[in-house]
């Protein structure tokens, strides 16, 4: 198992290298010169040259690339063009609010999705099953914007159950997170349940399930001992792949609920062409994605004895 993990990590190195190359090319070569945007119209050539030198943009590309690699390995991404803050500091500050919304919402959403799909597997074809299918399709078809607007209007503004928007650190921030968290769960539940349900029903029709019943096992034992373990393989894959995306939070939810997370930060950075910030967020996203893939494979190997040996 350990050697499997080590091998997967070594295999990831070329991928990460590729990621650095692509982000570098996109931002430093294709992306154009940020200096013109920064200094505004009517700036003199001297001013421009000074700024370029300051940002290191006057040096040859390979030097810029090595500089970028150095930044990455030390997790020091330089300073934001727009706010002049240290980017590593900005990310550290933004991650808290993002994760405090994303992690609980993701966690509860996934558990709820799995529970619902288990119930569906127990009551296949009955009213509960049909209702679930209809609701999850309906839930998927409605835009998240509709939930945000309806939630903020009815649940926050009209009935005052929740604050409309805002954020505070620590436990005092919890009330602010309930409504966006709820919306997150509702939005993700539709497609999760549909996927999990298909997985469960697919498993339930397998031959080994028939064997299990023929042994005299009850339906709960068949479901939890036999079916769930098999169903967990595709379910884990889907969930773990989603985890890296949690760190950027939700662009829309954070924006509408004024949560100062990485989602809001990304939108601001894009609006102001703040290249270093976007580059850092992109790279960390890619890093987490590659890491997430490794974790997926490990979970996969743990859940499925057939992949373990190779």
């Amino acid at each position, binding site marked *: 198992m350990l050697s499997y993990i080590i091998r997967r990590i070594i295999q990831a190195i070329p991928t990460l290298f590729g990621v650095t190359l692509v982000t570098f090319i996109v931002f430093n070569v294709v992306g154009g010169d940020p200096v013109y945007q920064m200094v505004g119209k009517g700036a003199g050539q001297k001013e421009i040259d000074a700024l370029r030198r300051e940002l290191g943009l006057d040096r040859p590309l390979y030097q810029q690339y090595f500089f970028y690699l150095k930044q990455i390995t030390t997790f020091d991404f330089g300073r934001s063009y727009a706010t002049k803050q240290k980017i590593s500091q900005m990310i550290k500050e933004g991650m808290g609010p993002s994760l405090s919304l994303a992690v609980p919402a993701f966690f509860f959403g996934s558990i709820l999705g799995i529970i619902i799909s288990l119930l569906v597997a127990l009551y296949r074809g009955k009213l509960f099953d049909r209702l679930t299918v209809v609701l999850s399709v309906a839930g998927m078809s409605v835009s998240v914007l509709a939930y945000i607007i309806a939630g903020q209007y009815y649940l926050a503004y009209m009935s005052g159950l929740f604050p409309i928007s805002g954020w505070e650190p620590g436990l005092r921030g919890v009330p602010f997170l309930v409504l966006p968290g709820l919306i997150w769960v509702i939005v993700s539940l539709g497609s999760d349940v549909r996927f999990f349900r298909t997985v469960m029903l697919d498993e339930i029709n397998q*031959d080994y399930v028939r*064997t299990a*019943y023929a042994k005299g096992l009850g339906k709960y034992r068949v479901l939890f001992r036999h079916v769930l373990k098999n169903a967990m393989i595709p379910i884990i894959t889907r969930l773990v792949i989603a985890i890296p995306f949690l760190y950027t939070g939700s662009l829309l939810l954070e924006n509408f609920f004024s949560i100062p997370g990485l989602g809001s930060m990304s939108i601001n950075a894009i609006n102001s062409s703040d290249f270093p910030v976007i580059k850092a967020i992109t790279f960390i996203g890619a890093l987490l994605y590659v890491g997430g893939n490794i974790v997926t494979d490990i979970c996969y190997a743990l859940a499925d004895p057939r992949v373990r040996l190779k």
Partner: protein
Amino acid sequence: MALLEIKDLSIQFSTDEGVLHAVDNLNLSVDQGKTLCIVGESGCGKSVTARAIMGLLPIPPAKITSGSVVLDTKDLLGLSEKEMRALRGNDIAMIFQDPMTSLNPVLTCGYQIQESLHIHDKITKKEAKEKALALMKQVGIPEAEKRFSEYPHQFSGGMRQRVMIAMALSCKPKLLIADEPTTALDVSIQAQILELLGTLKKSSDMAMIFITHDLGVVAEIADEIIVLYAGTVAERGTTKDIFNHAAHPYTLGLLESVPHISKEQEHLTVIPGTLPDPTDYQPGCRFYERCTFHSDLCKKDPVEEEITPGHRVACFHYRLKDQQY
């Protein structure tokens, strides 16, 4: 008295094409220690019958419209799901056709064997493991200790079927139903599994219902044979009756399609035609269309007639067979 007695069993499925008659007015009985083979081509209702005995028909769409299934003195069709569960894997066990897919891929073979022991016998884990190991040795799995904690994908097809057999035998069932247990295996492995089932049966007084579509397989192990055609019995009798004195044209066709190792055969004779549509049976003999021998007599429903004690055939023409076939 028979161990298992099925009387007048009829099973239907409601399908999009209408009501499908899977089994019609089936009668059969199996004595303790005996092997009954049910033979017939694909779709004639063999597996449905087996599932009905196990109480594992999907209801709906399946529906048992008449009959009784009596094991010892209990009518299985009248039992609750809970009572049935106590019997399954305990008094009646079953092995299936495809050992590749019939075992759970994420549980060890050892676990799967000891699971029924655990459920039915309420013994400790350690005892269950010891029993499971003994069973593995009994069914001829070498290095049982090591293989106990291996997963199905680490076993060959034949070894997996042995695991299935060990699993089925774990609670010493009175009746073992084997639904085409060798169909998915290589010929040489087939022979080994058949031999294993034969020896296991000799050493216990378990009864067996052996289901197959291949008459060639059954000569060795059957005491009695039922030839099923389109959900009804065409012919029944002892192995000798069927192999030496077959009377139904369908049985004769099946016998001809058994490959002979001694004879060099270019083509296997197969009975021309296919089973009639089970959602749309016409009155009269269901073999009518494919029978080289049909006449207006066959437009009436055939009934089983006794030729010699225990040998019965549902055909109007069996008496004429020697002259006309």
